[in-house]
């Protein structure tokens, strides 16, 4: 009896948790449908929702005003969303999809620091809701009445949204724009305001989702990324653009989590399995399964080809004499660096970081730019390389040299397995599946204390004796990074590279001329993973210790930012981007407490000024002018 009661209590708990998740996901889904922007900042809206509700309730005072406070907070977040749309996103609707993503990620950084500045680093738990402070007995257990209220809110909002979308002119326009926004414009509808309204509505839903959590969950600065991860999963599992699908997915995931908590530690065939630990990955497991079985989500429909496809990618240029001279000069300068900077040893350490970042970014660029596969989980292979090297070194006592050879292979095996699933998808769905695999890998590393050291990571990962001097290790890193980048470039100009780009530009045509599309993508994915693994191993030996951070989603996002910052369609892009990002990160982080906001601000400025990336911009300045003179 008691088991049943606790089971029911957990189920109800899951239902209550599903409501807020649904609100956030519904907003994300709406925004994606109409604007085609994958709004990374959506979790931040949720976070601001809780904080704003905390302040609003403190300001209005408790009592009936409490509810007004929650609504006020949601509206405030809606207004914030509208402002962001008008001031920022409106300027970049014509930029490539990935740039929009980069811009919304910069917003995450800025909003996080704004919240830090406004509300401080402490967790803030709001007061409980008036009238719903008590609890209701259910099967002999006390169940909070506020949670019962939340259980009702989810379906209620679902119903209201459904009415809005199917029974109003606004809803009709939203659904039409989701399919073909250019045509909606040609019929006399001002898309700009439609987009603003949808963005504000989506932000408001996220804000409401946050505000409603005020009495249940303390406001803290980590909620943004945690929420956006969960919301992405819900949207993808439910089916992009399907609001009822988002509700079903939110329910499914919340209930599975509840069941995992209820199961706790279970003995199965003599092995004790901790289901409660599974809660960290359960949503990503669900997403991986759904994407493999039904790639368009539970209630979504196969994606129609987008009418707003970006311009065709320009062919890659072979470097001319000027570019070759520049590359040679940079390489020479890099080899001379230790001698030139003997007064400040930090320069060498920072440059090692930059070189590792360059290799990581180049490997991501390889599958993203020429390969056309947008990976949100590339850190998985970086991390596999790092952990592979560290574990090999510590467990078998193999020397660094062996570990450096084996680690990339371990990462490649990981990419071989994950890639097989990933290349079966495309676009946002592929990106989400890479993210899911990365999260699963992260959760395993994070929790397998005996093998990976768990959250503490592994220490004592030092290079062999003759590379223990930083300058020697620098030379090794430089040589391997140069070799890695060179090999990647070489592949791109080989027939295999042509096949990769053909597949990116037109899957159907590539297929029709006899290219095995999936195989090409798979091989490219594995090569990208292999090189990322080498970067990870180099990273491990340069630091001497590693932690689960090396395969955290933040690391994947760092890689994305580097590639996008430099420019996706230039080969120099990842090199420039990684250098700029690592250097900015290093110098800004040392100079201010609000380094994230600075970094975000810089990224936003770069996105607005250089929509082709920094390297793309330089190329345009150098070559664009020359072409203008030589051409017509």
């Amino acid at each position: 009896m008691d088991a049943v009661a606790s089971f029911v209590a957990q189920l109800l708990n899951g239902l209550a948790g599903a409501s807020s998740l649904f609100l956030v996901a519904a907003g994300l889904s709406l925004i994606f449908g109409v604007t085609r922007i994958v709004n990374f900042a959506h979790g931040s809206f949720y976070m601001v929702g809780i904080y704003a509700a905390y302040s609003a309730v403190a300001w209005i005072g408790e009592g009936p005003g409490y509810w007004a406070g929650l609504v006020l907070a949601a509206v405030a977040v809606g207004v914030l969303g509208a402002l962001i749309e008008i001031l920022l996103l409106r300027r970049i609707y014509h930029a490539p999809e990935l740039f929009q993503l980069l811009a919304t990620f910069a917003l995450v950084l800025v909003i996080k620091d704004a919240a830090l500045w406004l509300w401080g680093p402490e967790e803030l738990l709001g007061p409980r809701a008036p009238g719903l402070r008590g609890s209701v007995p259910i099967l002999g257990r006390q169940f909070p009445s506020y949670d019962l209220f939340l259980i009702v809110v989810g379906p209620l909002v679902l119903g209201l949204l459904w009415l809005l979308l199917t029974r109003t002119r606004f809803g009709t326009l939203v659904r039409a724009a989701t399919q073909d926004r250019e045509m909606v414009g040609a019929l006399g509808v001002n898309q700009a305001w439609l987009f603003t309204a949808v963005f504000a509505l989506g932000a408001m839903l996220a804000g409401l989702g946050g505000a409603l959590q005020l009495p249940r969950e303390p406001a803290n600065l980590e909620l943004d990324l945690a929420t956006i991860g969960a919301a992405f999963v819900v949207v993808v599992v439910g089916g992009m653009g399907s609001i009822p699908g988002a509700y079903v997915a939110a329910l499914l995931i919340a209930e599975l989590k509840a069941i995992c908590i209820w199961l706790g530690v279970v003995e199965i065939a003599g092995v004790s399995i901790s289901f409660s630990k599974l809660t960290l990955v359960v949503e990503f497991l669900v997403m991986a399964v759904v994407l493999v079985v039904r790639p368009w989500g539970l209630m979504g429909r196969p994606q129609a080809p987008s009418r707003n496809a970006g311009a065709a990618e320009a062919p890659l240029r072979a470097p001319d004499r000027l570019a070759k001279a520049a590359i040679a000069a940079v390489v020479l300068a890099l080899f001379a660096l230790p001698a030139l900077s003997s007064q400040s040893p930090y320069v060498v350490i920072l440059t090692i970081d930059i070189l590792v970042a360059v290799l990581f970014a180049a490997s991501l660029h390889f599958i993203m730019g020429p390969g056309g596969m947008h990976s949100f989980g590339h850190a998985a292979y970086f991390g596999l390389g790092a952990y592979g090297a560290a574990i090999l070194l510590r467990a078998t006592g193999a020397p660094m040299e062996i570990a450096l050879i084996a680690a990339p292979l371990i990462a490649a095996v990981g990419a071989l397995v994950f890639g097989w699933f990933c290349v079966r998808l495309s676009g946002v769905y592929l990106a989400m599946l890479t993210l899911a695999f990365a999260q699963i890998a992260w959760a395993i590393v994070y929790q397998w204390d005996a093998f990976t050291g768990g959250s503490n990571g592994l220490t004592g990962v030092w290079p062999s004796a003759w590379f223990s001097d930083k300058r020697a290790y620098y030379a090794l890193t430089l040589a391997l990074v140069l070799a890695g980048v060179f090999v990647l470039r070489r592949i791109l100009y080989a027939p295999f590279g042509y096949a990769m780009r053909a597949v990116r530009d037109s899957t159907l045509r590539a297929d029709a001329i006899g290219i095995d599309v999936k195989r090409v993508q798979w091989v490219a994915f594995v090569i990208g993973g292999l090189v990322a693994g080498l970067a990870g191993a180099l990273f491990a030996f340069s630091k001497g210790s590693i932690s689960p951070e090396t395969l955290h989603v933040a690391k994947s996002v760092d890689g994305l930012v580097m590639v996008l910052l430099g420019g996706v369609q230039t080969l120099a892009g990842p090199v420039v981007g990684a250098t700029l990002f690592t250097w900015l990160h290093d110098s800004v982080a040392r100079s201010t407490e609000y380094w994230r906001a600075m970094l975000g601000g810089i990224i936003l400025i770069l996105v607005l000024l250089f929509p082709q990336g920094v390297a793309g911009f330089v190329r345009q300045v150098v070559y664009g002018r020359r072409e203008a003179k030589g051409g017509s």
Partner: protein
Amino acid sequence: MLLDVHALSAWYGAAQILFDVDLGVRRGEVVALMGRNGAGKSTTLKAIMGMVDRRKGTLAFMGHDISRAEPHRVAQLGLGFVPEDRRIFTDLTVAENLAVGRQPSRRWPDGSDAPTWTPEHLYRLFPNLGGMPDRPGGRMSGGEQQMLTVARTLMGNPFLVLLDEPSEGVAPVIVEQMAQMILELKGQGVSILLSEQNMHFAELVSDRAYVLEKGQIRYTGTMADLAANDEVRRAYLSL
């Protein structure tokens, strides 16, 4: 002149498609823009709407300068566009497709009422649509979609409709209905600029014609003159 286009050039990416196109439509006229596949007919219509990557030239519609206007602004001035590929909202019902196109009724500058359309009105004009107001656009035949895309644009009560290849890819019986429909619209006071390859169809409905080849206007004249001019037809229109 209702629509006055002067020295219109247009580009897709780096490729220039139109070169200094001049054309005009007067009130009450049906004008045909003739030319082979790839001559630039559709691009001309899209460039007038502002739906190309880049354009240059002077465009005036009912005295408003629309050389730089965005598509929604052009549509709000009463210039309707019916795309060649129909672009029906397949998830929306027939009635909802029409609702998306709805705009307020208009008056001519002289104060008289311009043609105004309601769904009931359009269901009479296109009886097939009247029988299926709740059917999703995606579950209609090509001919029915062709009617719906015209009806949807008419919901904006346009003074002038840009009609892109109405006779392409539909059954002969629908082509006939399209011709009927154009004449009926003309009778109601709607002007039409249509792009067309089908000489027979154009002859049936048009007052004047322009012939386009490789993005340039090669011939301007009345439809009757063009029909009688074998030389021009052989040079620019025959296959």
